[in-house]
């Protein structure tokens, strides 16, 4: 049976109170933990498959709830949903091969969390004339440049307001939304949210978190274990 990987945590993590001893994960499969390379690795034996939108959504939510419960007990390095491997040995091999990176990731984010701020433009009812003008190349580029400047300016304002809570900061624009990532101490989550709680009237924003601080982990350096056979399902 395949295994669905949830996350890697420090070996001494105690999830008894947050996760429980008989927790159920995606599709009701029991959550199991195994020691590997000096860490505790959480997974379920699972045959997760593509199903309806509802079942995928439920799977993603169950996955999050497991990781969130473990995250409340201590730092974690989450796997992306759904990470399915052929067996536990493959999971253990991957963790062992990347032991230094898991160690560095957990060290760098111990007692710290990631808060996110999405800043985007408030929707304005546009007149037909304005819409027509906005479709011209020059008007579009001009509007885009103005928007980008405003998003960046607001991100900087938020960063400065919350400076005393921010340990590290990163930001990236994605489809008209400026996504900002702040590494903050667990104890400072509410203080950060309060400091980041206002932007200019023509913009909107969302503050979410706390999340595992994946943006501040060296995850791109992970070395892949040579994949086993890939099962092709013909439809």
């Amino acid at each position, binding site marked *: 049976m395949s295994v669905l990987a949830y996350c890697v945590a420090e070996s001494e993590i105690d999830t008894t109170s947050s996760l429980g001893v008989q927790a159920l994960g995606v599709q009701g499969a029991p959550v199991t933990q195994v020691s590997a390379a000096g860490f505790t690795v959480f997974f379920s034996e699972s045959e997760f498959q593509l199903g309806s939108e509802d079942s995928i959504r439920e799977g993603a939510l169950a996955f999050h709830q497991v990781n969130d419960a473990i995250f409340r007990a201590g730092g974690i390095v*989450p796997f992306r949903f759904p990470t399915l491997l052929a067996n536990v040995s493959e999971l253990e091999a991957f963790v062992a091969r990347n032991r230094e990176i898991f160690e560095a990731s957990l060290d760098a984010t111990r007692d710290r969390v990631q808060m996110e701020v999405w800043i985007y433009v408030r929707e304005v009812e546009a007149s037909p004339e304005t819409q027509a003008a906005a479709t011209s190349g020059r008007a579009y580029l001009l509007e885009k440049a103005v928007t980008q400047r405003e998003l960046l300016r607001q991100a900087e304002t938020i960063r400065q307001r919350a400076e005393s809570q921010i340990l590290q900061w990163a930001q990236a624009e994605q489809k008209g939304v400026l996504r900002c990532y702040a590494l903050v101490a667990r104890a400072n989550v509410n203080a950060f949210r309060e400091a980041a709680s206002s932007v200019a009237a023509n913009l909107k924003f969302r503050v979410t978190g706390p*999340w595992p601080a994946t943006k501040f982990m060296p995850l791109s350096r992970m070395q892949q274990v040579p994949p086993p056979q890939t099962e092709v399902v*013909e439809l």
Partner: protein
Amino acid sequence: MSTRTDVMAIDSAPEAEISLLDIIDNVLTAGVVIHGSVVISLAGVDLIYLGLNAVLTSVETALRHIEADQARASGTRSTEL
């Protein structure tokens, strides 16, 4: 395709403020990737990811749905999130 992006209470840490959209976005885009780990594929395309992308509407569309949900819930025009 359904574009349901509920803003719902999640059993989470007390200080957390997270919607279903945030959760789906986070679990799909953050974390360790093990290449080749997804075993269901067809002609090189991972069907699970195709399906999940279908669940995730674009960020802009999802944000609009969240605002609409909140406006309906409050019975007023959406202002600030």
